């Protein structure tokens, strides 16, 4: 398996996704066995986070440390020369000479592609605005596959901000590669899927149902993927305040759901999942966050060609 850059989930074919799911499974076994893995010893990962992150950045750094490699980077644009007006291309051309692989998060949509066009070492997109977040998708798929033992013939509810939510864009594209899935898009009209993305998914034969009613939809679901209404993506604060808190998954809501439903969330959450349900065995979002480590170990080892 060869992967030069990982910018979009479209960079992977279905068999590549299967490969990474298997590879992450082996990494998970290694992590659980507490054995030390040093397959990336001597390699340097640069994490360039122009936007805030907890899970993505730390799980990449954790993954690299677990593989025996080292990490350099910055956690916000203010501590880099970007605050002085340096371009993405110039930043990347500089950092590529300091590192063997670069993970970048940037608020502008398409920024990861700009980075890849200007870089000789592998670039991994850790989120480019509301566009894509492909590594999150891989760990989401890993979580679904672990819990449901399949990625096909599922009814998946995507709930919340489907317009700006990059995680749902990438996840929906990936799930449309697998047969027999139905996606129920639960969002107010203003936050439904962008037309282009919806059309691409429908073109694969995946059934899409759009609704704004979570209460009615929840009983049909195998997977409920909840996202935060993202304040930072709204131009108008008034519009954000109007839509914020529109969906809340709480004990009462889960009473209507299947016993084998799984509730996922890319985190951070604000008020869309009430902490009172955190101990419900159907709520798997913290486990999902942990699965970021084995999946990112798999990605780093493959892209650095450090596989054993």
């Amino acid at each position, binding site marked *: 398996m060869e992967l030069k850059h990982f910018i979009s989930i479209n960079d992977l074919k279905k068999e590549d996704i299967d490969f990474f799911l298997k590879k992450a499974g082996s990494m998970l076994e290694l992590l659980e066995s507490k054995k030390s893995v040093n397959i990336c010893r001597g390699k340097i990962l640069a994490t360039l986070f122009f936007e805030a992150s907890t899970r993505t950045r730390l799980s990449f750094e954790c993954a690299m440390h677990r593989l025996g490699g080292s990490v350099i980077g910055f956690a916000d644009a203010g501590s880099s020369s970007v605050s002085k007006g340096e371009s993405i*291309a110039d930043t990347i051309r500089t950092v590529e000479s300091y590192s063997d692989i670069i993970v970048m998060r940037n608020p*502008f*949509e398409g920024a990861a592609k700009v980075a890849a066009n200007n870089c000789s070492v592998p670039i991994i997109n850790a989120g480019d605005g509301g*566009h894509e977040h492909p590594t999150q998708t891989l760990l989401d798929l890993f979580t679904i596959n672990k819990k449901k033992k399949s990625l096909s013939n599922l009814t998946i509810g995507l709930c919340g901000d489907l317009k700006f939510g990059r995680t749902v864009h990438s996840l929906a594209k990936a799930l449309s590669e697998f047969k027999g899935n139905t996606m129920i898009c639960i969002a107010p009209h203003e936050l439904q899927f962008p037309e*282009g*993305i919806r059309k691409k998914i429908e073109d694969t034969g995946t059934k899409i149902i759009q609704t704004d009613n979570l209460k009615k939809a929840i009983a049909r679901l195998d997977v409920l993927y909840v996202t935060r209404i993202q304040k930072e993506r709204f131009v108008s604060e008034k519009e954000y305040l109007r839509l914020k808190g529109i969906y809340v998954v709480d004990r009462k809501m889960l009473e209507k759901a299947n016993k084998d439903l799984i509730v996922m969330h890319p985190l951070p959450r604000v008020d869309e999942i009430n902490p009172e349900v955190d101990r419900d065995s159907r709520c798997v979002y913290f486990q999902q966050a942990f699965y970021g480590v084995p999946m990112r170990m798999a990605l780093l080892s493959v892209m650095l060609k450090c596989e054993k």
Partner: protein
Amino acid sequence: MRKIVMEEKKVRNIIDGTVIDHIKPNCAMKVLSVLRDIDHECIIVCINTDSKKHGRKDLIKIENKFLEEQEYNELALISPDATINIIKNGKRVSKEKVKTPKHIKGIGKCNNPRCVTNCQNMETEFDVISIKPTVLRCSYCESTAEYKG
């Protein structure tokens, strides 16, 4: 009532240059705006003239001007049915319908304010995903929009 008979006056032919025919009605000025280095050339513009094929059309004749690739691509986006006639020594040496490119560079602006092309000093790139109407998809942020010229 007096009957008014209108006779179409023939505009003069050009010796060397380009005749862009079958331009979408009322789009000639848009086409002129994308042509470069024509400030000192003789230009004849017909707007909303009769067309056997399309009912109405615009037409432009430009002396000493041959279209560059970028101009050709922009013309194809503005008016996908336009034809280009090359005139040399007063004779037409070629006539072809414009072909809309599948991918364009450096033309237009992405209408997504969060797109990286609007925030960095760089060329835009689009895939042409439909010709009538002309719909472009940004190669960076993947947002789609109809090309308005």
